[in-house]
């Protein structure tokens, strides 16, 4: 039989005995010696988090601390949901992130399409202004936005936590780039068939935009769910906290109730980890793109 001729692999005596199209598979790559411990090291914080959330509270403040809990218990989670409004916080975060995702998908794709395809007065100026705002650090906006919301009577409510997430420069930019990349002929055909702009947009263009929308949704989810600074400034009452604000302020009052704290950490992080594991490829695409926003 014909041995595979690859230019890259000089034949070694060992590899002649088992001819294969993938000559590198024969010996274990040396990179495992680096990658395996590194991967385990990266997992340590999450593993510790889950273990602590399932440990009996007393064992977490023992010295020396046992490496593994003597038994697994859900007391931490029970305590979390009975002693604190964590359920309410989760609901709040879900409302904020959910509305943000829906609003961004609708508003940013409409705007992205407008900037990509429609010709109207003020288009270039407003698009340039939107892109330029990406440079402005949040810190510059914190104080006036706080005062603005206070004047509008929106402070200390979920509206305050949600409004800044309803649309974003990055989302508009992302959707515009996407719409520019799809061929205009399909829209022309739809227009010939008598579709209005809006019909063309909803029936022809938007169905094509699913990958871009997925990226936008993930980007918005990560931002809105994990946001700390804005809820910290805008929300005071405990029942209006998002889960992030809730767990961040936990620390002050329940600093050593580790099993409770870690249970809270698990419920705050688990949804995102689950999404990540389910849609890893899209998350990674989002990471690459969100880097491009600079």
């Amino acid at each position, binding site marked *: 039989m014909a041995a595979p001729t690859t230019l890259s692999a000089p034949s070694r005596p060992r590899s002649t005995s088992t001819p294969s199209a993938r000559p*590198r598979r024969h010996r274990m790559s040396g990179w*495992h010696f680096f*990658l*395996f411990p590194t991967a385990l090291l*990266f997992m340590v*914080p*999450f593993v510790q*988090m889950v273990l602590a959330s399932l440990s009996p509270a007393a064992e*977490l403040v023992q*010295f020396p601390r046992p490496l593994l809990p003597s038994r697994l218990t859900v007391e931490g989670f029970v305590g979390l949901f009975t002693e604190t409004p964590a359920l309410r916080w989760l609901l709040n975060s879900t409302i904020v992130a959910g509305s943000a995702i829906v609003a961004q998908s609708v*508003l*940013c794709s*409409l705007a992205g*399409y*407008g900037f990509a*395809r*429609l*010709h*109207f*007065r*003020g288009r270039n100026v407003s698009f340039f202004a*939107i892109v330029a705002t990406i440079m*402005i*650090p949040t*810190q*510059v906006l914190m*104080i*006036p936005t706080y*005062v603005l919301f206070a004047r509008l009577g929106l402070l200390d409510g979920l509206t305050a936590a949600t*409004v800044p997430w309803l*649309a974003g*420069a990055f989302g508009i930019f992302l959707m515009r780039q996407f719409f520019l990349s799809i061929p205009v002929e399909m829209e*022309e055909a739809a*227009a010939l068939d008598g579709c209005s*702009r809006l019909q063309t*947009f909803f029936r022809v263009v938007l169905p094509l935009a699913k990958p871009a929308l997925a990226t936008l949704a993930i980007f918005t989810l*990560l931002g809105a*769910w*994990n946001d*700390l*600074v804005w809820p910290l*400034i805008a929300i005071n009452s405990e029942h209006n906290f998002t889960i*992030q604000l809730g*767990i*961040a302020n936990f*620390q002050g009052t329940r600093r050593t109730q580790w099993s409770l*704290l870690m249970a809270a*950490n698990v419920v*705050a*992080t688990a949804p*995102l*980890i689950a*999404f*990540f*594991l389910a849609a890893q490829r899209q998350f*990674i695409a989002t*990471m*690459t793109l969100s*880097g491009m926003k*600079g």
Partner: protein
Amino acid sequence: MALPRITVVGELPAGDLPAGSRRLRRWVETLQGWAFVGPATVIVLGLSIFPAAWSLVLSLQKWDGFSDPTMIGPANYSRLVTDDQFWDAVRHTLFYTVLFVPTSALMGLFLAVALNRKIRLIGFYRTAIFVPFVASAASTGILATYLFSPQFGLANDVLRRLGLPQQGWLEDPSQAMVVIAIMSLWGQAAFTTVIYLAALQDVPAELTEAAKIDGASPWQTFWRIVWPHLSPVTVFVVVWQTIGAIQLFDLVYTTTRGGPLDATKTIVYFLWERAFRTLEFGYGSAAAYVLFAVTLLITIGIVVYSRRRNLEAF
């Protein structure tokens, strides 16, 4: 056969219409355009350009949010220059930036090179390294206080088992910032790694293959062939991570709240305290504008430098 005239709505043929009708058409197009972009544009600009301008005015005022603001000109800025606490915050931020930015770029590069191969378990390796990216600052902060707790934390437990001296970690002024940097690296390794991975996959395979045939070692291939291709990405990563580093706040808030002995009080933490703890809106805004200016200068500086050396990154 008469070909149908292909037009896009919004760009209807205007040549054969009377002037009045053409003007009407323009109006309709403009209205239609703004109907599409209007809502998002109003939100984005209304929550950025308008507050940014207001913030600039605020930075020239003395205001506690309740009484009438008084115009004091550049006094807030001159006060910053002589404020020791501000300069301490600058020093702490700088220390963090120096710790974080080069390490995160190098780590990303190294992890990307390691992960850019088809070996067994590669999916597991990637997932394990990437998944911390979804952890929020609050969650990372809590994990940091737990893992680096001097009494009960895993870090000291490992040191004890190895017979090494115990450390104060977040409770030690000289170590707290290092711990924060370590946790940032844990959460953000994915970002720089993914950027470098994408760049590595853009390196033409023919070049590395050719180098291999010519007898170049992997080491030589990397530095002579691959690395030059990665320079623009490196510029981008450094700019991006620097901007993020000088805006450090969340992790400080969720770990040390600026302590111990103010050792982790960064510029943004200082700003936040001035604005929302002592209600010095004008002074806080001035600090924010200084931060904005520094961000712009760093970005422009690095970009100009890279242009000079022909490393087109932007």
